[in-house]
């Protein structure tokens, strides 16, 4: 008799990485991997965990708690469980752990991972600060210094592990990570580090002149600084110039129109990726920044395409002031 193939009962794509524990339970139940009695045991374990943490929250001084606070603590517990469950190679193995391990044990392991992530994130922030791009943009510095410091000060993985606490106003190029708690900060800092390392390769004055080509008031706008710098450097590679001064000209723009007009998305992507490779041969780009650039250019394609159509390529490949 053939054994049923259970390896793909829960597809990773159907899971929500922000609410992993909850979505894994849902998918496992629908897929028949968790029985009624499994679910009852999990719910009971969850209740016991919640009771334990609310008791810690109340310092044992109150038998009851406001519903909103209990929900908050439950969200925190669910987040921590999700962190540990994500560490299994497949969702099925995570479900196996849910069936055969207590939630308390899974939660403890999740807390260990979170503490590790906190440590790593602190070091990432410090590396960025040690090599921080000199820019007058208020959002850049205040987010990396004040905002992230604020997170580390406020973050309490015991009771509010899912909270981000800060607004993280500075927008990274590939988009705000759709994650919670320390996972958000870890991913956000990873993006910031890659962007900062890239931008720090260029003279801050050249970056300033470049961004003034978009608006003189860029220092007061929560805009991403990396994208214009990346595209300027790639534009210079594409027009066979040395990229270090970020000094595209109007005649370079005419060439870029030629390069990008009537190109498919795949052709544009290939073109940009080749120029990243060209850039890495000239400048000492870190592996992290290079990998990030490959992801970043995919996001630039619709913008470039629209600009070619509208004749506004000078708003994408900036000409410095």
């Amino acid at each position, binding site marked *: 008799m053939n054994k049923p193939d259970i390896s793909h009962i829960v597809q990773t794509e159907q899971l*929500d990485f922000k*609410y992993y524990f*909850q*979505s894994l*339970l*849902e998918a496992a*139940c629908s897929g028949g991997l968790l029985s009624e009695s499994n679910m009852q045991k999990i*719910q009971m374990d*969850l*209740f016991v965990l*919640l*009771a334990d943490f*609310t*008791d810690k929250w*109340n310092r*044992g*001084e*109150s*038998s*009851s*708690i*406001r*519903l*909103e606070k*209990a*929900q908050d603590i*439950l*969200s925190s517990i*669910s987040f921590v469980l999700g962190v540990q469950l994500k560490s299994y190679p497949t969702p099925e193995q995570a479900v196996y752990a849910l069936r055969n391990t207590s939630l308390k044990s899974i939660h403890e392991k999740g807390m260990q991972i979170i503490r590790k992530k906190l440590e790593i994130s602190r070091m990432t922030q410090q590396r960025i600060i040690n090599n921080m791009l000199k820019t007058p943009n208020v959002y850049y510095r205040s987010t990396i210094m004040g905002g992230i410091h604020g997170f580390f000060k406020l973050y309490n993985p015991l009771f509010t592990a899912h909270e981000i606490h800060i607004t993280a106003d500075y927008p990274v190029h590939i988009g705000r990570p759709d994650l919670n708690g320390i996972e958000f900060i870890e991913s956000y800092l990873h993006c910031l580090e890659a962007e900062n390392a890239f931008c720090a390769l260029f003279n801050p004055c050249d970056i300033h002149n470049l961004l003034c080509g978009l608006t003189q008031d860029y220092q007061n706008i929560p805009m991403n600084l990396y994208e214009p710098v990346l595209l300027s450097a790639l534009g210079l590679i594409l027009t066979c110039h040395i990229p270090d001064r970020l000094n595209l000209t109007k005649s370079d723009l005419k060439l870029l129109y030629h390069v990008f007009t009537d190109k498919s998305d795949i052709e544009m992507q290939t073109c940009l990726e080749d120029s990243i490779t060209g850039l890495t041969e000239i400048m000492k780009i870190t592996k992290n920044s290079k990998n990030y650039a490959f992801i970043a250019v995919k996001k630039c394609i619709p913008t470039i395409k629209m600009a070619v159509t509208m004749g506004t390529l000078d708003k994408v490949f900036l000409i410095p002031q």
Partner: protein
Amino acid sequence: MPKDNNEWELTIMDAILSRQQNIEEILAFNNQSAQYGLTMTTQQAIALTESCKDSLKRNRRIELNGNIIIRLISSFCDSPYISQQDYEETLHELIDLFYDFKNDTWDMITDNELIEFMKEAFNSNCCGSCEMLAEELMRLSQHIHEGKTFCCYNCK
């Protein structure tokens, strides 16, 4: 299991567990309260747990550790103002007052402090009246709302 809406889950779990535990514990306490001439029937115990559940729901609270009914019975069963005739009714009122003012004092008073305060007031200047106890508790809430602590209210 809905991703964000944990409320229904909490209320279901709480209802199932607390109801079962509370009834048994309340009836078991009859052994101690009987010395004061006070005992509870199963029907009355069920009514009290329902009352507790309703009060928690109305005040948007959830009880996960301990049993307030037992603690209120334990504190008030020796009151000179409670007889077998009004035992159940008084407990219903005390439960309501407890959770109402647990919220109204912004959780700044511990369970023990609040129960002690209620017992003291009930047995002294309130003369066994829950209405007067409510007024006394409102004065306490006002004191907390003015930014003062329970300790300095007690010292007045």
